[in-house]
């Protein structure tokens, strides 16, 4: 069968091959234009303005950008056509000679270096600032007071951190039923039966991906406006994110199950519900349990951070004392957080170990 195709290729096959080749040229020239544009912009804005002209505030004008863009289109296209560019190498349409090889290597090296230099300038890395005597003095003050924590607020801090642990616990527990339902609806191997179920799968995946890509910190800001600042807002923020993340983890566990038992059970004439109950559920119970405990552990850490933007618990308290520059109190809170996080980490690891 395969040999036949090789011996007399149909016109359709030739067309597709030709189309693919043309398409690769287009992709390659677009990539080359981007590379040239990127290097010129970086060279102009960082190397030229910053080092040669030594201006602090780099001027910006669309005119310059457009000129550079036009130059890059010309250069990039020409470079692709010459088939010696980096992208033609990457897409496998370069000439097989030494010029092409060296150009690609040298240009790649060049790209890496200007990127590193641009990064250095953009992040404003300054060795002078790092070792300034004044700065070190300030840091020392904070460190010293943090290492002599103020135990006067221990009771308050303890209650606050208990609040944090419970925020995380509630978010995790309440997330289980919705995450379970969603995970079955977003498992490819259960949903590819017909078009309707596949559409449901696809739409839900997109929604969950979106929810997951928004950090819990942002959700906390939204919900602290919605239900008011406090632990409830933090809990809902974590809940939303946990549902989306766990639905993903659960559904991946479902997708990873052995197909054999599934087939065997459906071959006995069992219906869909029975197949899921007998062949899917036993295979996923333990991973689900393990993910859920791990998520609680993660949520304790996240709940701390969420407190910083009004999600209640120890984070909110930390924010208040930090605002007042009361570093010894901050020191105690940080100590307590580290301790609780370490304990949670240890417990969840132990439980997960026991499960498997």
């Amino acid at each position, binding site marked *: 069968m395969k040999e036949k195709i090789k011996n007399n290729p149909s016109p359709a096959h030739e067309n597709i091959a030709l189309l693919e080749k043309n398409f690769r040229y287009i992709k390659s020239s677009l990539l080359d234009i981007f590379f040239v544009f990127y290097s010129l912009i970086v060279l102009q804005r960082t190397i030229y303005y910053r080092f040669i002209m030594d201006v602090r505030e780099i001027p910006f004008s669309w005119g310059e950008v457009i000129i550079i863009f036009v130059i890059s289109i010309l250069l990039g296209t020409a470079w692709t056509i010459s088939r010696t560019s980096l992208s033609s190498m990457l897409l496998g349409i370069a000439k097989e000679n030494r010029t092409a090889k060296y150009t690609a290597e040298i240009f790649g090296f060049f790209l890496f270096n200007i990127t590193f230099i641009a990064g250095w300038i953009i992040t404003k890395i300054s060795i002078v600032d790092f070792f300034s005597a004044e700065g070190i003095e300030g840091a020392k003050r904070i460190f010293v007071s943090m290492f002599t924590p103020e135990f006067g607020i221990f009771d308050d801090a303890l209650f606050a951190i208990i609040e944090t642990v419970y925020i995380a616990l509630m978010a995790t527990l309440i997330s289980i039923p919705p995450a379970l339902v969603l995970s079955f609806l977003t498992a490819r191997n259960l949903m590819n039966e017909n078009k309707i179920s596949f559409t449901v799968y696809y739409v839900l995946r997109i929604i969950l991906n979106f929810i997951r890509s928004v950090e819990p910190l942002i959700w906390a800001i939204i919900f602290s406006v919605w239900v008011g600042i406090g632990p409830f807002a933090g809990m809902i923020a974590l809940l939303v994110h946990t549902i989306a993340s766990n639905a993903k983890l659960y559904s991946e566990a479902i997708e990873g199950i052995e197909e054999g038992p599934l087939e065997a059970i459906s071959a*006995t004439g069992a*219906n869909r519900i029975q197949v899921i109950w007998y062949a899917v559920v036993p295979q996923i119970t333990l991973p689900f349990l393990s993910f859920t405990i791990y998520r609680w552990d993660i949520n304790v850490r996240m709940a701390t951070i969420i407190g910083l933007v009004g999600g209640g618990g120890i984070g909110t308290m930390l924010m208040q004392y930090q605002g007042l520059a009361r570093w010894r109190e901050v020191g105690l809170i940080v100590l307590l957080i580290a301790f609780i996080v370490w304990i949670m980490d240890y417990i969840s690891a132990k439980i997960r170990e026991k499960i498997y």
Partner: protein
Amino acid sequence: MILKIRNLHKIFGPGSHALKGVNLEVNEGEFLVIIGLSGSGKSTLLRCINRLTEPTSGTIEFLGKDITHIKGEELRKVKSQIGMVFQQFNLIKRRSALTNVLTGSLGRVSSFNSIFEKFPPEILKQANDALETVGMAEKAETRADKLSGGQQQRAAIARSLMQNPKLLLADEPVASLDPATSNSVMQYFEKINKEMGTTVICSLHFLSLVRRYASRVIALKDGEIVYEGSPGSIDDEKFKTIYGQDAGEVEIR
């Protein structure tokens, strides 16, 4: 006649034509063995019979009824009458042998009862009898993943017995087992075939097993039946046409 297959084709994709017009008739009570190289279409043929794989064209008649395109409840009904045993046993690993055997009766139990694992007493009795039949009565409460390969396959046979199958399909049931265990597992198929009158269609690799258990043999090569007849009449020449010039026979006892 229990099974009648007419001009069955299965195409998985371009260049992957697994069955090329298979015609086959199986009588009640037969022990039919399918031989052939890996990739010759043995599994596909078996899986088309109980519709784990959808045939591309052709017809399959089971007990005089065309089942090629039936769906839903009707298909489940047919599936519940055809037992199947797999090479990889396909038991639920974290459940007891008994629970695994009970899953064979799911076609007769309501969804509600099966979720709460409430099986009627007569089904429980049948499950214990099925385990007895395959000599596994004392292993009923052992978790499936704690059983040896041979024991797992016997539990899988017991599971298929729960369906009171008219037809039992076995897809290389002994290919993952050692020679001695292979023989003992094959004996249970023989027992089911002889004592219960169940028709068995089984794919096998070892000719010594074929000669011992089969009442009839078909050989597949590249999706086509190249030999059909009694197991005794496979001579050297026929063997080479089925398995290729370089093949040599391996004995297993």
